[in-house]
């Protein structure tokens, strides 16, 4: 989902940076508060960040004949909320921009917006809504991780369509083109991410009850 270095017009690059920056700053402050109030969740937070690291390194083949990687942000977003995840995602994106030439510094704001803001917010909202409606955590996290992942790729497509409207069919045509590359390809891969995240969540429910309770994961049901 990375928009490559230099592939956004300067105004767009700056614009997305300005939009994303407050989320990163707010998220960093949330992390500081959370770690101070609940030091017992520190390791789980690191592990959730590590999960983003692993998944975004896996380039999985898709039925359309191209490869792309999951985002892994649904887990952290469901456990710690969206803005904490923004920071975790931003770290991964920075690593990939600097060391792998995937994405870039000029497009960092746009990439943070899609992978570390929109995806986590969608995932968090779904997780809270679905557990609140009384469904199990596993069902909620599956839907959250799957659709959060898709939301990221849809956002990337729209960002590119906004920057590169098709000369004939306009923004809609360009959006269709980019969605064809990113979103359609992503459906099976998003399902993979959903399933993997459920496995991790099941293990957490079994072995990390204390931390899940400290984070009020099931407060809506109690």
């Amino acid at each position, binding site marked *: *989902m*990375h*928009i*490559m*270095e*230099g*592939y956004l017009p*300067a105004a767009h690059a700056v614009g997305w940076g300005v939009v994303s920056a407050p989320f990163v700053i707010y998220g960093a402050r949330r992390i500081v508060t959370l770690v101070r109030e609940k030091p017992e969740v520190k*390791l789980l937070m*690191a*592990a959730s*960040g*590590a*999960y*983003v*690291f*692993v998944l*975004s*390194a*896996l*380039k*999985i*083949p*898709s*039925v*359309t*004949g*191209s*490869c*792309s990687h999951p985002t892994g942000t649904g887990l952290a977003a469901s456990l710690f909320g969206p803005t904490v995840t923004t920071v975790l995602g931003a770290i991964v994106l920075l690593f*990939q921009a*600097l*060391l*792998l*030439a995937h994405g*870039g*510094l*000029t497009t960092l704001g746009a990439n943070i917006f899609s992978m570390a803001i929109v995806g986590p917010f969608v995932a968090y909202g779904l997780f809270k809504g679905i557990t609140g409606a009384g469904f199990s955590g596993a069902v909620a996290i599956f839907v959250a991780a799957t659709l959060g992942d898709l939301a990221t790729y849809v956002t*990337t497509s729209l960002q*590119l369509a906004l920057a*590169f*409207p*098709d*000369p004939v069919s306009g923004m809609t045509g360009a959006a269709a083109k*980019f969605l064809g*590359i*990113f979103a359609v*390809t992503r459906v*099976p891969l998003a*399902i*993979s991410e959903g*399933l*993997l995240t459920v*496995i991790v969540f*099941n*293990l957490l429910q079994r*072995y*990390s*009850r*204390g931390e899940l309770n400290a984070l009020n994961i099931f407060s809506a049901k109690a």
Partner: protein
Amino acid sequence: MLKRNLWMLLAVIALAILPLVIHHGGDAEFGGADGEAEAAITEIQPDYKPWASPLWEPPSGEIESLLFALQAALGAGLVGFYFGRRMSPAKRPDNQ
């Protein structure tokens, strides 16, 4: 739980292998979707020139896969460390 997790893991593996089977001996290149987006941009605006380039690029595909492997290994190591700690009997009391 173990059984259900195993089935889900198998499903994930199947979803990753299936595309390779479908396109077996065929046309698909399995390049990156990022690269396809780049091509689409060039198609829409042939005269667009990227105005910035990465500060540093992995000098070869080998180095790139090294760094990708490193990224995955670091992440997996930490996730493994986490569950290793949480599952160890000595750490049980805080998991009640």
